[in-house]
């Protein structure tokens, strides 16, 4: 019996698998719930609850999945196609935070107990990529417990599924004390008992907000595995005997979002909305010294970037990643041209417990913008306030990171560039609402042919890169530290499955 | 005097303070014979209490005995270590303080406080101590002592409390008692009762005592001899009758004249001009010289020694043979103020 004592900076927000589309929430839930497929460390797809999948040969708007047999939920119920249908429908409900991922699914057809078909609105060749975090729930359990709709997280709803879990995963939730303690133990009837090492029999997941305490906990041997290792401590940890550090780039870009759509900003004293002016945005883009951030704030643990697309994904092209030289004179000129020669004042909202040195990045940005006359006050807060405030459009200028679990550009477009409508654009707090762009995005969704699709993607990128709707900063490198009896590689999505971990004592 | 119960010689007490060393007592000498009650009078701040505290070794820190010696039945008791002192305190020297309200610990019953003292000094058992405590209370005139012994101090009246304090001071039958203004806090009518109890007990047990007070009436009534202190020095020591009726020292003379009398016809009181100097500003020579109506040159230069005159001792150059005008005892006739 081996306990994995696992710590990171923030708690998972809820146990409800469809309520929050956020990394820390998914990572813990992955131990308890399972999607049809998962994305492996190398980026490939790995069968999980589905053993086979593919687009129907007859109809490119139909995806067919063969489900794994002999899978049971923690409550003993069998996992069947009914449950898949239920889970997808649940994820499409208005209170779901995963609805963009399944927006294209028109209908889920239960063929038999272990076969389902997803009918999409037009062809959706990358649908499979969107399902890697879409967890399967037990219909019966949800109905029994009045949990057929996802928890409305932003409204602070009391919800059974938020505190209890019934997945098919290798671990069963034993205890959840928000902010302090999550315990899960090995599920005896797990379908993969013989397939995986399953050396770890118990998971003890603790959020430790204070970075030094977190590192101290690892150094003193109180935890075995730490995520969100502060960059400044990597060197020290690497030199410590008995500690292993793994690192690698994450499939996630860090960027600044701006309110480009409204006529007037509310979190600042500017006349009108300076962000609505492309000149201003270009000036900002020129003023942000990405390399300095990389070197000092990130201590080299990042890769500066000029686009929202992480280099991992389909649709990324070299030219997009390039970013302008820092040119303050030109930037000032641009500000002048835009009519903001005297600058303006705005509040930058920033999380302080989500991304690597997020607060530090924001502070650095504040300084850099100061040089082109933009006075920025910084409000940094916990991700649990930051994220709702983004989805509620309560910010004009914010820092956000975006991972692309589908490894495809469309995911970025749907969430970050599409206007907030038709169940899309839910993380687009820029108020960007460009019918043309939306139409272009819609076309990608309907395109069955991959080459044609890629062309359309490139067109969108060209369009949005030109518009400078966001100020991309970098792709961050993530580091994990652990006792040397473990070897947990970095996953591009910062995912991790305890069932895969082999313990070498 | 070898038969003196207590003898004090050249006692000097000092307080190191922020502004230098303060001499609170400067060369005090006196004796107390067996069964004798010595009254100590003087103005506030003259050093009366310090004298008492010095004898029993309870000077408030940082006060210290800087010179002289104190002997109890011939045995030196200044500069004893605390454990030795503890065997003297209470057992051989009893002490009564001025304020009966604050002298008793409010959180213990009168009986507890009596019994613990008796137990400690006489090594009696609990029941005997208690019995003795009851007897003592009866002796000092507390009615129904069996009932009152378990009361707390605040349940007693002022006069009764002071009697309890006297009982406490006398419970180990000490050779010697120091009473520091034992009646100042009490009403006139009760004051008389307490003085009576005190005097009776001393007489009955043959205990010697020092009675510190600034009330001449109390001295007149209770003391055999009296010492007058002025600015930490002895002005005059003598039999009560002599000192009160025919004071020698000009200060004593003034003091006696300034007391309104019951028989006098409401005439002007004798008034000593000025006030007693602060201890850090005692003039050279005789401490009284700036206020003295009969001041001489020598008084401003030299400190007068303790001079035997007419059976009393006085520190005044007037009575020194070397001075030109040897005066006789005279009635208090310090000049009327201008």
């Amino acid at each position, binding site marked *: 019996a081996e306990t994995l004592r696992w710590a990171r900076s923030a708690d998972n927000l809820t146990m409800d698998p469809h309520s929050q589309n956020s990394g820390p929430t998914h990572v813990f839930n992955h131990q308890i719930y399972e999607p049809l497929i998962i994305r492996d460390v190398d980026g490939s797809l790995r069968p999980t609850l589905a053993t086979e999948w593919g687009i129907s040969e007859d109809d490119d708007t139909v995806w067919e999945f063969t489900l794994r047999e002999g899978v049971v939920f923690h409550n003993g119920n069998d996992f069947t196609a009914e449950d898949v249908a239920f889970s997808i429908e649940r994820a499409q409900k208005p209170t779901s935070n995963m609805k963009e991922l399944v927006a294209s699914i028109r209908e889920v057809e239960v063929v038999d107990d272990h076969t389902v078909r997803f009918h999409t609105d037009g062809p959706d060749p990358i649908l499979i990529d969107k399902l890697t975090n879409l967890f399967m729930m037990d219909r019966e359990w949800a109905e029994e417990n009045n949990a057929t709709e996802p928890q409305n997280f932003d409204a602070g709803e009391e919800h059974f599924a938020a505190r209890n879990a019934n997945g098919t995963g290798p671990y069963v939730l034993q205890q959840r004390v928000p902010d302090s303690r999550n315990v899960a133990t090995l599920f005896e009837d797990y379908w993969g008992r013989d397939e995986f090492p399953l050396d770890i029999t118990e998971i003890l997941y603790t959020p430790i907000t204070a970075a030094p305490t977190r590192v101290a906990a690892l150094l003193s041997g109180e935890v075995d595995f730490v995520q969100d290792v502060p960059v400044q401590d990597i060197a020290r940890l690497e030199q410590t005997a008995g500690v292993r550090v793994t690192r690698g780039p994450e499939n996630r870009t860090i960027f600044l979002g701006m309110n480009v759509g409204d006529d007037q900003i509310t979190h600042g004293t500017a006349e009108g909305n300076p962000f609505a002016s492309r000149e201003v945005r270009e000036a900002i883009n020129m003023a942000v010294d990405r390399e300095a951030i990389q070197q000092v704030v990130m201590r080299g643990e990042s890769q500066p970037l000029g686009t929202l697309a992480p280099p991992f994904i389909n649709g990324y092209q070299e030219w997009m990643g390039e970013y302008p030289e820092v040119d303050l004179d030109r930037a000032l000129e641009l500000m002048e041209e835009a009519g903001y020669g005297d600058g303006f004042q705005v509040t930058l909202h920033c999380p302080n417990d989500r991304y690597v040195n997020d607060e530090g990045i924001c502070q650095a940005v504040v300084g850099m913008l100061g040089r082109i006359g933009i006075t920025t006050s910084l409000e940094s807060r916990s991700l649990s306030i930051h994220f709702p405030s983004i989805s509620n459009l309560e910010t004009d200028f914010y820092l956000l990171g975006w991972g692309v679990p589908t490894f495809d550009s469309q995911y970025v477009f749907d969430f970050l560039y599409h206007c907030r409508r038709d169940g899309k654009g839910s993380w687009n707090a820029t108020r960007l609402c460009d019918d043309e762009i939306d139409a272009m995005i819609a076309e990608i969704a309907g395109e069955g042919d991959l080459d044609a699709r890629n062309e359309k993607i490139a067109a969108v990128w060209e369009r949005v890169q030109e518009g400078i709707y966001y100020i991309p900063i970098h792709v961050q490198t993530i580091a994990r530290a652990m006792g040397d009896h473990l070897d947990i590689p970095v996953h591009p999505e910062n995912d991790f499955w305890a069932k895969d971990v082999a313990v070498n004592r | 005097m070898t038969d003196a119960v207590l003898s004090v010689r050249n006692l000097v007490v000092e307080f190191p303070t922020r502004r230098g060393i303060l001499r609170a007592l400067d060369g005090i000498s006196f004796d107390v014979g067996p069964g004798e009650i010595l009254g100590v009078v003087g*103005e*506030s701040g003259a050093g009366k209490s310090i004298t008492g505290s010095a004898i029993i070794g309870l000077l408030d820190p940082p006060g210290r005995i800087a010179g002289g010696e104190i002997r109890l039945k011939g045995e030196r008791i200044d500069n004893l270590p605390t454990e030795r002192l503890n065997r003297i305190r209470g057992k051989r020297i009893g002490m009564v303080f001025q304020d009966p309200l604050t002298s008793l610990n409010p959180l213990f019953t009168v009986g507890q406080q009596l019994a613990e003292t008796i137990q400690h000094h006489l090594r009696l058992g609990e029941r005997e101590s208690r019995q003795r405590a009851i007897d003592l209370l009866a002796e000092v005139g507390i009615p129904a002592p069996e009932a009152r012994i378990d009361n707390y101090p605040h349940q007693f*009246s002022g*006069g*009764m409390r002071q009697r309890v304090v006297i009982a406490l001071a006398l419970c180990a039958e000490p050779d010697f008692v120091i009473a520091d203004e034992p009646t100042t806090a009490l*009403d*006139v*009518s*009760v*004051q*008389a*009762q307490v*003085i*009576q109890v005190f005097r009776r007990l001393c007489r009955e047990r043959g205990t010697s005592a020092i009675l510190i007070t*600034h*009330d*001449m*009436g*109390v001295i*007149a*009534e209770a003391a055999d001899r009296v010492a007058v202190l002025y600015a930490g020095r002895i002005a005059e020591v003598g039999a009560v*009758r002599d000192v*009160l*009726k025919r004071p020698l020292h000009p200060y004593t003379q*003034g*003091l006696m*004249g*300034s*007391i*309104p*009398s*019951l*028989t*006098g016809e*409401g005439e*002007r*009181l*004798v*008034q*000593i*001009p000025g*006030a*007693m100097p602060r201890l850090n500003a005692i003039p050279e020579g005789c401490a009284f010289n700036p206020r003295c109506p009969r001041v001489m040159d020598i008084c401003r230069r030299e400190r007068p020694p303790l001079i035997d005159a007419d059976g009393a001792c006085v520190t005044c150059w007037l009575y020194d043979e070397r001075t030109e005008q040897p005066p006789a005892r005279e009635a208090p006739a310090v000049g009327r*103020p201008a």
Partner: protein
Amino acid sequence: MVGPAPADLVARREAASDSVVEVRGLVRDFDVSASWLHRTLSGEPRRVVKAVGGVSFDIRRGETLALVGESGSGKSTIAKMVVGLLPPTAGSIRIDGTDIWDPANAPKLRDLRRRFQMIFQDPFASLNPRWRVRDIIAEPLDVFGITRGRATRDRVGELLTTVKLTPEDGEKYPHQFSGGQRQRICIARALASEPEFLVCDEPTSALDVSVQAQILNLMRDLQDRLGLTYLFISHNLAVVRHMADRIGVLYLGGLAEVAPAKAMFRDPRHPYTRSLIDAIPDIDMTGRERTPITGEIPNPLDPPPGCTFHPRCPFARERCRREVPRAFAEASGALVACHGVEEGWVGQAPAGQKAV
């Protein structure tokens, strides 16, 4: 020195009746009951201290009336009521014919206030330690609008000289003075508004005898010079004897006897007065035995019925236990509240001889 009295003041003095102060049926109760809740639960009644119970006296112009009595007999309470610091429960106090506690007289009161002042027991506590002496003395001058600016300075200097201090002393703070000097500053302050009537509540009991003599002499001098009237309070009979023309003896809030000073010491009438005089320690070594009063002072919360002195009175009879004695005038001019004296069964024994 205090300047000559203004003409109108003199006129007023002449015009007014012989009494500066008339006190009639003065009563003061203090409610010291436990809380309402406590009383309700334990069924206790209200508890009231009758600090002063129906006291009447007059003070004639230029005279010194002394009040003596043991602690708690109500001396200070009377003093506070007389100067208007404490409202009486019943009775009236007239100063120059004006009832100072009658709300109708409130407008006149400001003017009246100038005419009476008080000297307190503790010279240490009665001067604001944070004020310079000159400001302390100038305060009444300012408040009553008597003088302004330079005139105030000069007047303060004068007053200081009057009490035998120097004008330069005005620059100092109270703590730089000795007790006797401080009491003199208090007197200077009291004199500032040129009062006619001074209430002195134990003005020397905090002082040493030698200093006491200075103050008592000063007070007498001032009286002679300014024609002041004193209500003099003390528990020291010798001091009272020295200062007073007439003496009132208080016992448990009631006047036992009021008599001319000499007469009282020569021939005390009330048994309590006798025992008080008996209890004075004999400094003159007349060989007189001191005879303390037996018993304790009764609890003012629960005073004995009838004559309050009866439990301690060697002459007490049945009537004393039942009936409260009323004051009656003796031939000698003394007012005595005692059944025994009235009925003649309290012996005429002179003080000093034990009368048991």
